[in-house]
Every structure is written in structure tokens, then in C-alpha cells.
């Protein structure tokens, strides 16, 4: 849009900056994007009672339902909240351990066997496309309701992200010291420990903290599908239409996520 404005003004004095073909292209893209947007808006609203206008007049009614939040439930939900954080901690720890072999396998400069590297990459890519809650639904079916399926879902989900980030770090390391070690007779284990680990460790810790943040945010909602933690309480209160309690839980989640993110951010800044 801006380029068009630019053009229409400069047309009067100077020749246009962009050729006509580009302009036609840009306009077509703009129209297609806008059309797709309008169509999406139409599609998503077609099953709505009363349409757009009615929905927005409802918003105020809803605010009345949610407020004031019943903050007295916070003492009662403290335990599930703690469990949620513990879930994220355990999942992040196991993912951080399991990711080491996976990241090494999917790093092009470490794994010399090409089929092995391609297979690991593909599996990780497919893993990353599945949302965390979908994994949780499947594991709840597999292990029953509780914390355990939540932890497994978080481990699998964060493995996908972590292994990709770390394998990319490994691929960008300085290979010279590693080759020097190999040339002077270092074994594979020695090369990895003394050549690779010192170069990757700060990034590794930072990424693990980043994934921990993601896991905290994911773990608070896992309970919605029966995978334990605060989400379970949230789901119950929602089903009872007890909106002041729901709002109190949402505020608690909000505060906890903010605090943990703040701490983790400070730690990451100190690391790099």
C-alpha cells in the first residue's frame, strides 16, 4: 500500500520507481490476500448466532460474568499450580538429556552417515508439526488421566524444538579445534567432550531455559484434556460455569507465567 502511495505521488514529476509489472503483481497479491481474509471472516462467522454485531454486544455481559474474580480460590488451587510447574521442570530435564543424542544425530557435521541424519531430521520435523495438546490427548488415551501423560507429551513436544535448535548450533560451531583433536589422535568421545561441548554449552543452557518457558505455558493448559495440573481445575470450573473462579485461576496462571519468564529471561541474558 505504501509503495503505491509513493508511486502515485512521484508519477507527476519523475518516472515511476517501480516498473508497471511489479505494481500489477503487488496489487494482485494485495487483492488475493484481502479476498482470502474477507472469505475467512465470512466462513468463521457463518455459524454464529446473531453475527458480528450481536457478539460484541455480548462482550460486556461476559465481563460482568467474569468479574470480580473470586480470589479466595487461589489458596485451594495452589497444589495443582505447583504440580504444573513440577511437570514442566521434569519434562524439560528429560528432554534436555534425550536431546543430546538426537541433536548429534541430526547435525550434518557430526553424523557422517547420510541416511541416519536424514531419517532423524525427518522424524523431528514431523514431530514438530503436532501441537502439544494433541500429543497430550493421545497420551491420556494411552496412560490414563494424570500427570504422567502430560509429562510424556511435554517431553516429546520439546524434544522436537530443542533437538532442532541445538543441532543447528552444533552445525555452526568452529570445526578447526575438532579436526585438530582428531588429527592428534583423539577418540570420538574425546573430540565431542573437549572440542564440541565447550562451544555449545552456553547456547544449550539458553535453549533449555527457552524450552522451559514454552513448557510452562504449555503445561498450564494440558489439564484441559485430562493431563493433570492446574488446567484440570480450570476445566472443572468451566464446566460448572463458575466464571469468577475461572478468572481467578487465569490471573494466577498469568502471574506465574510472567514471573517464571522474567527469571528465565534474566538467566538467559546472563548466559550469553
Amino acid at each position, binding site marked *: 500500500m505504501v509503495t503505491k502511495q509513493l508511486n502515485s505521488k512521484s508519477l507527476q514529476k519523475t518516472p515511476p520507481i517501480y516498473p508497471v509489472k511489479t505494481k500489477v503483481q503487488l496489487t494482485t497479491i494485495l487483492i488475493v490476500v484481502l479476498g482470502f481474509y474477507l472469505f475467512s471472516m465470512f466462513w468463521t462467522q457463518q455459524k454464529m448466532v446473531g453475527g458480528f454485531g450481536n457478539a460484541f454486544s455480548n462482550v460486556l455481559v*461476559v465481563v460482568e460474568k467474569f468479574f470480580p474474580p473470586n480470589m479466595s480460590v487461589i489458596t485451594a488451587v495452589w497444589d495443582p499450580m505447583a504440580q504444573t510447574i513440577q511437570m514442566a521442570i521434569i519434562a524439560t530435564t528429560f528432554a534436555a538429556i534425550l536431546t543430546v543424542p538426537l541433536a548429534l544425530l541430526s547435525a550434518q557435521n557430526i553424523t557422517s552417515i547420510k541416511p541416519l541424519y536424514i531419517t532423524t531430521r525427518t522424524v523431528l520435523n514431523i514431530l514438530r508439526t503436532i501441537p502439544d495438546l494433541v500429543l497430550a490427548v493421545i497420551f491420556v488415551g494411552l496412560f490414563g488421566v494424570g500427570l*504422567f501423560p502430560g509429562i510424556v507429551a511435554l517431553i516429546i513436544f520439546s524434544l522436537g524444538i530443542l533437538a532442532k535448535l541445538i543441532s543447528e548450533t552444533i552445525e555452526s560451531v568452529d570445526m578447526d579445534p575438532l579436526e585438530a583433536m582428531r588429527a592428534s589422535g583423539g577418540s570420538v568421545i574425546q573430540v565431542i567432550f573437549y572440542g564440541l561441548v565447550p562451544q555449545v554449552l552456553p547456547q544449550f543452557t539458553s535453549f533449555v531455559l527457552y524450552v522451559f518457558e514454552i513448557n510452562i505455558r504449555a503445561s498450564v493448559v494440558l489439564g484441559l484434556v485430562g493431563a493433570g495440573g492446574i488446567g484440570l481445575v480450570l476445566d472443572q470450573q468451566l464446566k460448572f460455569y463458575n466464571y469468577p473462579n475461572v478468572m481467578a485461576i487465569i490471573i494466577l496462571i498469568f502471574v506465574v507465567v510472567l514471573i517464571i519468564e522474567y527469571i528465565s529471561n534474566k538467566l538467559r541474558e546472563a548466559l550469553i
Partner: protein
Amino acid sequence: MESISLPPKQPKSAFKKIKGILIFLAVIAIYIWTFIGIDIDWARAVERAISNFGVIIPRLFSPDWSATGEVTLKIIETVFIAFAGSFMASILAIPLGFLAAKNMSRSKFLSNIGKWILSAIRAFPDIILAILFVVAVGPNAFAGVLAIAIGSTGMLGKLYSEVVESIDMRVVEAMEANGANKIQMLFYGVIPQIIPEFLSYAIYRFEIDVRASSILGIVGAGGIGTMIIFAANNRNWSEMGLILLAIIIVVTIIDFISARIRRKIV
């Protein structure tokens, strides 16, 4: 043979040492709290896993093709939710991104307010926003659109503000020195520099939103998530297999297209 002596290590300051020890102790304390606090019914989990494994896993890998029509319709709806949501977010995030950028206003206070708003939005998981909007506008796809729009604004606003902070301010200063007014500086100095990256981030966020909108149906906000929760409740694992396959295919295709477009833009 003489032993090789390594060069002496740099002495660490006492403060750094104490800080390191404190962090170490804190981590240990957190782990003790975690492993004492967590209670998992291992016996039940293992028992359930053994009896379910042979039933669920093979069915997941033999999708129920008879549901293809419904799944296709719902996955298209998911993409629509994601698109409408990220389109709204990519526009909503522009004023917030400018507000949060340090180099766009002289007062630090304003940019801090912008940063706080954005991190406050980011602290809400998408699905929590969806819960709020489902109550507000009813259980339909539009609640999902609103949840995605607000949820994405947090991240896009932050990325936008970083883009704005990284522009070449000399261009803007030169314009100011030549007597350009604020509007001119914005349109000819700032906007041409930020457009490609803004677009690239908006498309990137669309990728994330496709993933995010596929689960919103769990709380009733439309899309394929509605089918996921039905399939799980009915223990219809072969339909779940098809849904998974659909999500994997659509997400992969959109990631691929989006990556190509982004490479072209920037």
C-alpha cells in the same frame, strides 16, 4: 617425559564464585522440591499403557478414510481461523510495535508501557484466550479467530518493535535536517525500511497460528480441534490417526510455502 603444563586459568572473582554456588544450590533445591512434590501413580500408568498400547497405536497408523470429507472441511476451517487471526494481528501489532520501539518516541516511559502491554499479552496461552472468547461470542470459529488475533499480537508486536529499533536512523535524521515533517519522515524514512521484515514476520506467525488454531476446538473455538476432542472421547483412534495425518500434511505444506515466500521477501 615432562608433563605438559597448561596456561594458568584466569582467577575468578569471589563475587562470581558465590553467585555460581548460589545458582547451583537454587537449582538443586528446585529439583528436590520437584521430585518430592510430584506424585505419579506409576502402577496404574504402566498397567493402562500395557492394555492400551496394542489397541491404540496400530489404529493410529491405520487412518479411517471414511471421515476424509469432514476432516478436510475442518482442516480448511482451521486454516481460515489462522489466516483471519494472523491478518488481524499483523495490523493490530503495528501501533503496538511502534509504541514499544525505543527509537520512535523520546520518552522511555512510553516504550516501556508498550513493552509491558506486549509481554502481558504474551503471557496468556492461546487456548486461555480462546476460553475467554468462547464465553464472549459463543462456541464458534470466530472465537478462535479473536483468540489467535490477540495471542499473535503479543509476539508480532515484540518482533515489529525490534525491527523498528534496528532501522538506519541516519536516513530519518537526514530527512529531519532537511525539514521533513513527522508524517513524511514516517512514510519515506521509516516505512520503506521495515516493510519486508514486517511482512516476513507476519507470514512466519501465520505458520505458528495454523498449529495453534488446530487445538482451539478443544475448548469449543472451531477448527479441527473439535474433531480431536470428539475422537478422543469416543476412543475412535483410527479417526484420530486421520486427523493427525491431516495436521501433519497441512502444517508441512504451509511451512514450506511460507519459508519460500519469506526467503523471497527478505
